């Protein structure tokens, strides 16, 4: 279909209606809303912060892991005898040593009967970098020496790298002996959405756009390596593990279950964590290995991974191939979306199948598309384990969907800005439930869209294009918190204690790995309790003392943890006010808090200091009201009012949704193919911003990961499944010098109604739209539509040359390249392997 349709009529004018009335966020002297400098930064900037590799315990030994150098093999045997004779070696173990002694894990997240993860390969090697054996020695050098003399006997098997190859029933079987929901095979899960009637929408559509899209594997690339120190106390039977992780209770519960010891005998303590981005949101084999070695020897065991190990065996972004279509009416209304996704989770994956569920569901936003039909085959390949990574599948969805929007705009003869404005969710009233099931409690996405377009100079640049330059837009809405289909919970908890000198300690199990918990939680406590900001401290995450919470991922800290913190602080406030009312013989309603004291409303210089009130509760309990339980602790757990996924794929997984609208201005060098992002504008709705400084930092960091995904980062494998760029030297993560100045950042708050403070998640908004915005800008600049990521200079130049050779105005890379072997046109597209026939849930 090549007809050009007349320009759509202008969209009907809409009243300004973004959200209910903005709620009161506090008086002028409140800290929430202010750019309080981060409490964390002094230690980080002066190099005194202590990370996992800095931990030294008395008698500590060092462990190192031998990893497979082949991607797929039958493992016949591992001979540790020579390693055990090496000087300084204290122990060595391999998979056979642990069979029947530790329990496999991964069952809960994946809904399997038996877990598919084990500390070492036992009879099969599934990917390059998989754990084969470990040595523990007096020094890491002695351990490395010993690894070199371990003999591994294996027979190579055919290797599967291409995720679409996994659809072939004849492809080499990777996970053997696991009975998945759909039987044994490389397709280990399926996913689908059936909302409305997509077939009818297709039949009624004036325009249908279809394209195959591929998205890349991206590393977490946290500078602080994965690692742990395990220390088993053989007298008490308590295993203490210090770990660089995003979730202490996920580590504790899964580790205790794997080791089959009581959960109150595992203590997880977290030092400073130099970021995770989703790549540390699970328990890893090295945590089990260090624990087992420590339990065997009764000594602390240090096990920190090297960068090559992290690339190969940490988790990377899931890869996707999408066969996506969008249906539109002549006036630009998006009426339907259909997709078939081949979702690559690598050789094993705890979270990978969840990524396609949530990333696709939430990825439909910000358009309330009425008819959606999606299938996914979730597959294993002999590549690095996949998992969550900043955006949790949303950047992958947006990459496809937001390019389809531009393709549709071209066909309709509409400005892509107007087409988006026509479709972004702008309900008559809030809360509004989209056909996909998301409940939008507030949003300013339409204003975000217009703001970023204006900031980039959209209209002028479209009217007067410069050669080799282009502009592109993309919009998304990111979940804030998430009820995962496999994990029916979305809670965080905080305990606060008023100490006997009037200071406050916050206990939380949600690890701060860049989110500034010590700062923003203290801002909340300070405001609620009237205590000085500098008097509030956050205790290090420790499963022995912190209340149970899920951890820090899914952009949930500000909204979920922040709400728990607010509620705990309010409960503590009620207690101190009750004591003060008793002592002052006043009505509690007449009292207020502020200036480190409880005072009579309107008289902030009167009243009783928190220090005195705490003293009564601790040391002068006869001062307390009759029957008052003498404690100055309060705990609150907040579980979001979210829904489980329905059988048709719909549901409201997130407590609220953050808006992001991005506009990119790029220049392409026609001689070298170099793509330069010369300007970039971002407008976000993060609700009520607790700390603008932290939120801006999150957006900048999110953009950084987005531009890396767009322009450079990928796991490059050879056909034998060997990762060719497993170092920061070769892996094309962007340097600061490659980034544009991010001077056009806008925050347009539509405060959340569901969250008492009005805040929304910030951590992942900055990532989602970036690849699509840049992809659309590249097309605008060159006429080359990239359908695969990343958009690298070499691909760009070869595409430009081929386009020129064929004399085409528009060109798809790689679909229109001579050596492209995958389906070029929709009539060649594959069909999902699953079928709805006889499905009782539909």
């Amino acid at each position, binding site marked *: 279909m090549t007809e050009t349709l007349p320009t759509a009529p202008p969209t009907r004018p809409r009243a300004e209606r973004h959200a209910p009335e903005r709620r009161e966020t506090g008086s002028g002297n409140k800290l929430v809303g202010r750019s309080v400098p981060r409490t964390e930064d002094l230690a980080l900037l002066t190099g005194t912060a202590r990370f996992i590799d800095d931990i030294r315990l008395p008698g500590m030994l060092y462990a190192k892991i031998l990893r497979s150098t082949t991607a797929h093999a039958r493992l016949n045997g591992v001979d540790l005898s020579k390693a055990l004779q090496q000087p300084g070696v204290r122990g060595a173990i391999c998979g056979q040593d642990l069979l029947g002694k530790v329990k496999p894990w991964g069952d809960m997240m994946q809904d399997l009967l038996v877990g598919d993860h084990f500390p070492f390969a036992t009879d099969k090697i599934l990917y390059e970098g998989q754990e084969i054996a470990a040595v523990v020695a007096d020094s890491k*050098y002695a351990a*490395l*020496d010993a690894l070199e003399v371990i003999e591994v006997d294996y027979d190579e098997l055919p290797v599967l790298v291409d995720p679409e190859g996994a659809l072939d029933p004849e492809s080499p079987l990777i996970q053997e002996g696991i009975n998945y929901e759909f039987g044994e095979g490389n397709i280990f899960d399926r996913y689908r959405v059936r909302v409305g009637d997509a077939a009818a929408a297709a039949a009624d559509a004036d325009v249908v756009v279809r394209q195959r899209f591929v998205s890349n594997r991206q590393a977490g690339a946290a500078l602080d390596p994965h690692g742990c120190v395990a220390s088993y106390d053989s007298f008490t039977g308590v295993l203490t593990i210090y770990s660089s992780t995003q979730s202490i209770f996920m580590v504790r519960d899964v580790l205790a279950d794997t080791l089959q010891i009581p959960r109150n005998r595992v203590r997880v303590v977290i030092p400073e964590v130099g970021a995770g981005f989703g790549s540390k949101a699970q328990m890893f084999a090295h945590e089990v290995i260090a624990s087992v070695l420590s339990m065997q020897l009764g000594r602390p065991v240090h096990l920190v991974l090297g960068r*090559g190990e992290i690339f190969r065996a940490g988790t990377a972004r899931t890869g996707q191939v999408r066969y996506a279509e969008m249906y539109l009416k002549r006036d630009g209304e998006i009426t339907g979306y259909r997709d078939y996704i081949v979702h690559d989770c690598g050789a094993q994956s705890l979270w990978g199948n969840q990524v396609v569920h949530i990333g696709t569901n939430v990825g439909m936003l910000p358009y309330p598309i009425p008819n959606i039909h999606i299938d996914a085959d979730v597959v294993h390949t002999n590549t690095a384990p996949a998992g969550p990574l900043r955006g949790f599948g949303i950047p992958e969805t947006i990459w496809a969907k937001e390019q389809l929007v531009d393709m549709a705009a071209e066909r309709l003869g509409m400005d892509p800005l107007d087409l988006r404005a026509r479709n972004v969710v702008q309900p008559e009233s809030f809360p509004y439930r989209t056909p996909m099931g998301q409940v939008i409690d507030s949003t300013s996405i339409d204003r975000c869209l217009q703001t970023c377009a204006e900031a980039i100079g959209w209209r002028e640049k479209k009217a007067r294009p410069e050669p080799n330059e282009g502009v592109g837009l993309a919009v998304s809405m990111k979940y804030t918190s998430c009820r995962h289909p496999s994990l029916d919970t979305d809670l965080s908890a905080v305990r606060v204690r008023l100490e006997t000198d009037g200071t406050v300690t916050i206990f939380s199990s949600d690890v701060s790995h860049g989110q500034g918990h010590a700062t923003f939680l203290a801002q909340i406590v300070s405001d609620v309790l009237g205590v000085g900001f500098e008097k509030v401290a956050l205790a290090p995450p420790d499963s022995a003392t912190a209340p149970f919470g899920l951890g820090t991922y899914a952009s949930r800290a500000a909204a979920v943890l922040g709400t728990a913190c607010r509620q705990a602080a309010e409960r503590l406030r009620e207690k101190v006010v009750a004591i003060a009312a008793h002592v002052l013989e006043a009505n509690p309603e007449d009292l207020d808090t502020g200036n480190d004291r409880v005072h009579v409303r309107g008289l902030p210089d009167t009243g009783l200091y928190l220090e005195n009130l705490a003293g009564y509760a601790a040391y002068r309990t006869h001062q307390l009201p009759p029957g008052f339980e003498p404690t100055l602790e309060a705990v609150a757990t907040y579980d979001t009012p979210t829904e489980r996924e329905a059988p048709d794929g719909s549901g409201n997984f997130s407590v609220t949704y953050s808006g992001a609208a991005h506009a990119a201005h790029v220049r392409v060098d026609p*001689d*070298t*193919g*170099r793509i330069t992002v010369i300007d970039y504008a971002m407008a976000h709705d993060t609700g009520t911003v607790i700390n603008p400084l932290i939120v801006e930092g999150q957006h900048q960091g999110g953009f950084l990961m987005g531009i890396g995904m767009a322009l*450079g980062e990928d796991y490059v494998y050879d056909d034998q499944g060997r990762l060719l760029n497993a170092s920061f*030297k070769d892996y*094309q993560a*962007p*340097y600061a*010098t*490659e980034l544009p100045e991010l001077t056009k950042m806008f925050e347009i708050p539509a405060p959340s109604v569901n969250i008492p403070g009005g805040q929304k998640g910030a951590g992942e908004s900055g990532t989602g739209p970036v690849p699509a915005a840049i992809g659309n800008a590249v097309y605008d600049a060159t006429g080359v539509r990239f359908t695969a990521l990343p958009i*690298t*200079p*070499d*691909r760009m*130049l*070869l595409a430009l*040359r081929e386009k020129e050779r064929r004399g085409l105005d528009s060109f798809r890379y790689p679909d229109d390249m001579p050596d492209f072997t995958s389906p070029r046109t929709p009539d060649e597209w594959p069909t999902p392997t699953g079928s709805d026939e006889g499905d009782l849930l539909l």
Partner: protein
Amino acid sequence: MKPFSFHSPRGLGEAVDLLERHGPGAQVIAGGQTLLLAMKERLARPSALVSLAEVADLRGWRYTDSGALEIGAATTYAALAEAELTGVPLRGWHTEIAAVAGDLADRPVRTMGTIGGALCAADPRFDMVTLVVALDAELDTVGAGGGRTIRAAEFFDPVGGTVLRPGEILTTVRFRPQDGFSGVAFEKFRYRVFDAALVSAVCALRLGADGAVADARVTVGAVHPAPVLATTAADRLVGGTPTAVDTVEIGLVAADEVLPAEQATTSVRRYQRELIGVLVGRAIARSHERAHTTTAGS
């Protein structure tokens, strides 16, 4: 990393003795920006390291009586990059050497890394490797058997590595006097600013009295295990005055010469082939412009 002994001689003779005494396991360290990374990954396992950092004779540069530029092999990139601030500023086209030294890798590497270290590491993606061949530099070495002088094009083995013998130390890199060339331009493409080159290209021209090109060297690096002289392309320049059209065409000649289409079978190779054309063209244009500026100004 594996255990090793570390030696820091004050003089060249001592360094040569140490290398001889410690035998085949001994290795020279001159900055260590390649070697240390390899040692960290256990890819290099020297039993002894002989550092050139304290050998004063090997640092800095000077102009000889004949006007040649001699640079000590243990001179750091950072020192050379800031040559104009020193007592011995570089002249004319020699400043391109400082410009190249100041625009490679990152600041820590430039601070520690040395010219000789890069040449002996002989990674074809390193800019200095391409540059010394392009500018027909001479390399002086010393060893237990005495010293020798090797032309840069012969220093690098076409299959990779150098022709240095065990225990031999590179001491000096000697560039032609000013009249050796009229204009020099180095061009490269790297993905990220701190990456090594994917392709580098140098054009060095000498103009005759009539203003036409009397002599030309076109060199392409990072494509093969050692830099390659594109002699057909260079010959096309001689006797004429390159126009914008010529530079593009000669760039394509160089691409055909260095990486013919039938050898460019992978996408990376095809891209390198495209870049050779572009970068050689740019280098010719820029060197010619400089040659004219220099000639007009002298």
